[in-house]
């Protein structure tokens, strides 16, 4: 059997003088890190600090240019992810690497080598047993593509443990999962650590690291710049991450008097959810945050307000015009824009460069493209939005943060209504602040914003009012000023809510 059976041995991980460059970019420079078994080791740093590279070196996805990896004091050569798992190292990626069209059980069995016919019955038993140990509710017969990001992550954890991983690497695991799922994940991580497993927790979110990790190493521009242990001092961590202190723009509502969006008794449904009788009035310049566990109806609602999902009842009025039942392109002509969370899947076209994107985003004028003008405009937007790239850079060559900036830069001016799905998912603090400063600029010009986020802090920080979704039920619009993350967390969990009822507009 290629994978060793589950062993209760502990494992210490030692990284010695790891170097890795990609062309001119030095991603890891002389990194030394010792992680004793049974600890949750945080790896903190902003986007591009070299966290993922270091973890990919450890998990066999890429080879270091120089340096050694020692497991229990023994130097090992890790040539591939399969190699890594043989050594007991398993990695959970930012985007789960599973097989959406498969059933969960098949997905689970896949990749485990052992004869022509997998022992499905045994696998099923072990899957159930492991899942219940961590309190995960996984239905082995469901299809993988019906799962949320959080559930896919749980499946991945169970699989790695089943494969005998003793060191588990989590790359930004709290990105894209709900607050409740995060709690469950943290509980599972603590349990694993208590069982003697070594956990590497990669994140750019201070609160996650502070709330979970036994020790934390901070990376900046390829260097390991410092280590810290609880009690953590947030300001010191921030300084290590960025080399300077960062300030957040103060709250400052710019609500106007004109009506941007009016929803009258709106009903939307898909195969899982029904949202009934939602009434809402959004004035110009207002920011509405939509909170809720993933799949509670906020995404469906957002897409229906964009004209991407057909409503089943009620009216949508956009800047005085009844848009009920119209297509997204009609909404777009009326000044609405929708930005999807899946940047490369829905928002940007890989293979095309920035200039081509900027030309595409504008209403075509004439038959022939004026490329010179297009390049000039692209360069201007690149400067405006601080995108690290050139007009001729292909979109997939940009980092996630830069892709998100590009997506925002593609929006036309002026806009009436901006609908955003997870506008800052996966971005570091600096990019998040930058993107919101750009969005607030829009608000000052009268654009209303409705956004979905699973980051409660983001909802509280940037919204004027908040709608909380739970199983398709929607709270009345809540004033963000009077909310705390605890209150919001309880509402999201469907607890202690003041009787979930159809929202009533201001």
């Amino acid at each position: 059997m290629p994978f060793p059976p589950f062993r209760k041995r502990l494992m210490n991980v030692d990284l010695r003088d790891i170097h890795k460059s990609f062309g001119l970019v030095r991603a890891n420079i002389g990194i030394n890190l010792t992680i004793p078994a049974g600890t949750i080791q945080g790896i903190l740093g902003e986007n591009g600090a070299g966290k993922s590279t270091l973890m990919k070196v450890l998990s066999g996805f890429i080879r270091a240019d120089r340096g050694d990896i020692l497991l229990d004091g023994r130097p090992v050569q890790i040539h591939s992810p399969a190699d890594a798992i043989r050594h007991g190292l398993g990695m959970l990626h930012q985007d789960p690497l599973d097989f959406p069209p498969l059933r969960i059980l098949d997905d689970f069995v896949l990749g485990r080598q052992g004869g022509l016919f997998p022992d499905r019955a045994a696998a099923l038993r072990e899957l159930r047993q492991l899942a219940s140990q961590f309190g995960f509710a996984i239905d082995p017969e469901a299809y993988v593509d019906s799962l949320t990001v959080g559930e896919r992550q749980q499946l991945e954890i169970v699989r790695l443990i089943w494969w005998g991983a003793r060191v588990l690497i989590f790359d930004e695991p709290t990105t894209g999962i709900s607050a409740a799922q995060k709690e469950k994940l943290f509980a599972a991580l603590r349990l694993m650590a208590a069982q003697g497993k070594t956990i590497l927790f990669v994140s750019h979110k201070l609160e996650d690291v502070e709330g979970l990790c036994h020790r934390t190493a901070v990376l900046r521009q390829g260097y390991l710049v410092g280590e810290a242990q609880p009690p953590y001092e947030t300001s010191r961590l921030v300084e290590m991450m960025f080399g300077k202190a960062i300030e957040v723009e103060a709250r400052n509502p710019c609500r106007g008097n004109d009506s941007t969006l009016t929803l009258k008794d709106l009903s939307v449904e898909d195969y899982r959810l029904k949202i009934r009788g939602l009434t809402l009035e959004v004035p110009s310049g207002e920011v509405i945050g939509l909170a809720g566990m993933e799949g509670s109806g906020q995404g469906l609602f957002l897409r229906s307000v964009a004209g991407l999902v057909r409503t089943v009842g009620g009216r949508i009025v956009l800047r005085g015009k009844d848009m009920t039942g119209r297509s997204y392109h009609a909404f777009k002509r009326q000044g609405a824009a929708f930005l999807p969370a899946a940047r490369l899947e829905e928002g940007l076209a890989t293979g095309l460069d920035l200039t081509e994107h900027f030309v595409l985003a504008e209403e075509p004028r004439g038959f022939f493209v004026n490329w010179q003008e297009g390049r000039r405009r692209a360069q201007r937007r690149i400067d405006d939005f601080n995108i690290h790239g050139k007009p001729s850079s292909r979109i997939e060559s940009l980092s996630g943060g830069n892709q998100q900036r590009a997506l925002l830069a593609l929006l036309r001016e002026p806009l009436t209504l901006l609908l955003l799905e997870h506008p800052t998912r996966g971005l570091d603090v600096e990019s998040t602040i930058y993107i919101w400063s750009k969005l607030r600029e829009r608000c000052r010009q009268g654009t209303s914003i409705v956004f979905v986020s699973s980051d409660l802090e983001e909802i509280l920080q940037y919204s004027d009012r908040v709608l909380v979704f739970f199983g398709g039920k929607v709270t009345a619009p809540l004033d963000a000023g009077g909310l705390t993350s605890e209150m919001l967390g309880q509402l999201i969990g469907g607890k202690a809510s003041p009787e979930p009822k159809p929202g009533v507009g201001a």
Partner: protein
Amino acid sequence: MRRGLWIHVVFQVGALVLALLLTTLILVAVGAPPFEAYASILRGAFGSSSNLERLLISWSPLLLTSAGVLITFSAGLWNIGVEGQMVLGAIFATWMLRSLQDTGVAPGLIIALGILAGAVGGALWAGLAGALKTFGGVNEIFGGLGLNFVSTALTIYLVFGPWKRPGTGSMSGTQPFERALWLPSFPEMQLSPWALGLSILAILSVYLLLRGTHFGLRLKAVGRNMKAAFLMGVPTWQYTMFAFLLCGALAGLAGAIQVTGVYHRLLPNISNGYGFLGLLVAMLVNYQAIWAAPVAFFFASLNTGSVQLQLLYQLDSSFSGVLQSFLVLLVLLGEGARQRFLKTHWELRWTRTPS
């Protein structure tokens, strides 16, 4: 970028050499002297003015199908049905010529209408594949493949049924048209300046369309990411249909030229594989319309040149197909290898490692 270009050239040339090596092995295996065989291909293509003429005659339909397929490729569509679209062009052209030949309409007008009908026929057939995809959810590869079989069956039915020659129908096709209905050719030649001009115009237009116009850019966006294109305001299904219609019209044009300018009748094998060959050309040039003309010329010269092989070495003339396929496979392979090479040795300049 200079170095990137260099690496590109090295890999392309490597693929070419490898393809030649493999075909040489085959020649050796079947007992033909390889160098003489290659020489005879060259002679067959360029050895005499009549050989060169044959080359140009087969270049023009290939240019047309390549031009068409480049459009559907840009839109992310595998229009395998291009072969059938060419056949339908031939059928429509024949039908137009047959229905007008005894009416006293000016022959020049009849020919023009016949060619136009060919374009319409090809477009309709492509539109069918497009509609199947857009509204029926049938993958264009399967739809096109099915329609190809239907088009072949339709031709055979027409040649042996309603349009058969006086007496009994035969594989040699329908009754040839009168000389007046032939596409005018250069004096003393079979090569038609109209056919040549039309196909060169077509490839130039497609080059301009894909490179310089909003239409071409939006088509490309649809091909690269339909969802993103839609969110950016491109009416995606309409563009998909447009791509099919344009490609079909160009393929239909090729079919019409085969009827009016080359065979002067409808044959069971009127498309002669030019549709599929056009797909190979488009794959080889990887969306770059500017390279389609020389590559199509090269393929056409292989085609005409290898006719000689049969006479000299009893090698079937489909040997050129073997060489062409090797070439496409190896160039695609080389492209894959190049990208792997770049990925490991030379990261893109702006790539920051995701954290």
